[in-house]
């Protein structure tokens, strides 16, 4: 039986968390799993706390939220603080080391997303970058399914730059 996954992508509005949740979910479906994707956001379009929760299972999914996340991506201090004390020991937290300065230092990895994005030459592809970083640490979905799902959700003209960011994340 494949492992079930509960993944939280948390940060603020405008960081592509909801699209990334969608891409991860579609990739999991391509791998033959059941998926539940929920997003939480405020009434403002940009800024403010925002998150996606992706639950992946081979079985029927009852609880559509992440009751005990296996992986949390925290792009802001607020996102980090929301989860750091409430997750199990096995949960990996990947955080943005520029934004999240006050950490607990348990099962977690800091990553300088901005530095990587500057090297890639595009600050907008943060979601493709963090999807790569996530897959580097945990085999949640197959890389082929992820690439296919990314292409399905983006106009062709931005495929290359996003695949570059994804690849960059995988290689970190």
């Amino acid at each position: 039986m494949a492992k079930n996954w509960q993944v939280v992508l948390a940060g603020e509005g405008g960081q592509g968390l909801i699209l990334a949740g969608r891409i991860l979910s579609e990739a999991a479906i391509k791998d033959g799993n059941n998926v539940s994707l929920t997003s939480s956001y405020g009434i403002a379009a940009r800024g403010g706390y925002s998150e996606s929760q992706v639950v992946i299972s081979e079985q029927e999914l009852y609880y559509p939220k992440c009751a005990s996340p296996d992986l949390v991506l925290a792009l802001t201090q607020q996102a980090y603080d929301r989860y750091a004390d409430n997750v199990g020991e096995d949960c990996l937290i990947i955080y943005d080391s520029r934004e999240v300065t006050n950490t607990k230092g348990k099962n977690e990895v800091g990553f300088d997303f901005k530095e990587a994005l500057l090297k890639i030459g595009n600050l907008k592809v943060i979601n493709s970058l963090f999807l790569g970083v996530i897959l580097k640490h945990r085999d949640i979905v197959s890389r082929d399914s992820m690439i296919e799902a990314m292409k399905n959700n983006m106009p062709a003209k931005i495929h290359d730059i996003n695949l570059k960011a994804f690849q960059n994340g995988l290689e970190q």
Partner: protein
Amino acid sequence: MSRPEGIQLMEGNHACAWGAIDAGARFYAGYPITPSSEIAEVCARELPAYGGTYIQMEDEIGSIAAIIGASLSGKKSFTATSGPGFSLMQENLGVGIYQEVPCVVVNIQRVGPATGLATQPAQADVMQARWGTHGDHPIIAISPASVQEMYDFTIRAFNLSERFRIPVILLGDQVVGQTYENIALPDPGSLEIVERKKPTVPPEEYLPYQPDENLVPPMAAYGDKHILHASSTCHCETGYSNFKYGTNRQLLNRLKNKIYNYLDEIIDVEYFGPEKAEVTLVSFGSASRVCKYVVGLAEKEGIKVNLLRLISIWPFPDREVQEALAKTGACVVAEMNQGQVINEVNRVNTTNTPVHLASGIDGELIRPEIIMASIREAVK
């Protein structure tokens, strides 16, 4: 975009819109409101290709008026909204019930009252769905709990509304409306679709409110040779106002009996978990999913719990709830409000089974620990 084929990641609201299209809905009028707006979005994009009509109205009063008019003109019609819009629809909902107009009103519930938490879920419009419009009246409301059911139950809502000539409420919430899950839409040709009964008598003999053997009058459309007249005033079989002693009694009783004499066609529940249990959960909609999860959590604590999930909420499944209460040690009603369905449960609690409330009013899907706490309380 065309109709999605194969296994898809789909949002509940999108599944609802596709369910409506597959059920034969060809008229949507609405005023977009979070968290239901994606239903309007899909209808605006897709309905014209099906020969249908999408109208963005000035408000929700106009929206329900327009779908009533469209249905009286022979189209399957629907609208979607959330709490504030549902409040505005109440007066005309009564018109739809009184004039016996098949249509579907989707309410993707959010936290209220007033603007409340516009992007967050609640299940606090249960009683509004039942009694929000004034006067004695029946209503049918069904409650989906997944993206798949947003599709399936929208079709069911149309079928019930056509069969019984009554507005049907699809009572969802932000969780089922805006959660994405994998779904494969069936071949539309494989679906069982109910159409309203048309008159079979010659036009000159047609009385638009003369009931058939099921107490439901066959329905002509505006513009047909059979002349349809619909009035929101007390009316007799001609459809024209009638204030004679006895007319209103006869009409109200028929409106009630056309539903309550056929509960077997409407009432639907789901049983989950062991047949015998110390505690029976009663829940509906998205909260009932959490209950299924909690059944497993409780088992780990050594407490035997099962679930009676209400699929049809109105008419209330009196008999099913009564029987479940008689078989269990205690009951926990899990709902995302301060206690609405629990009053109905208590109404039919002839065995005086202890009934506890697990109330989720935090603007999120009810947490498993809230339900677990009520279960522990119930077995203390």
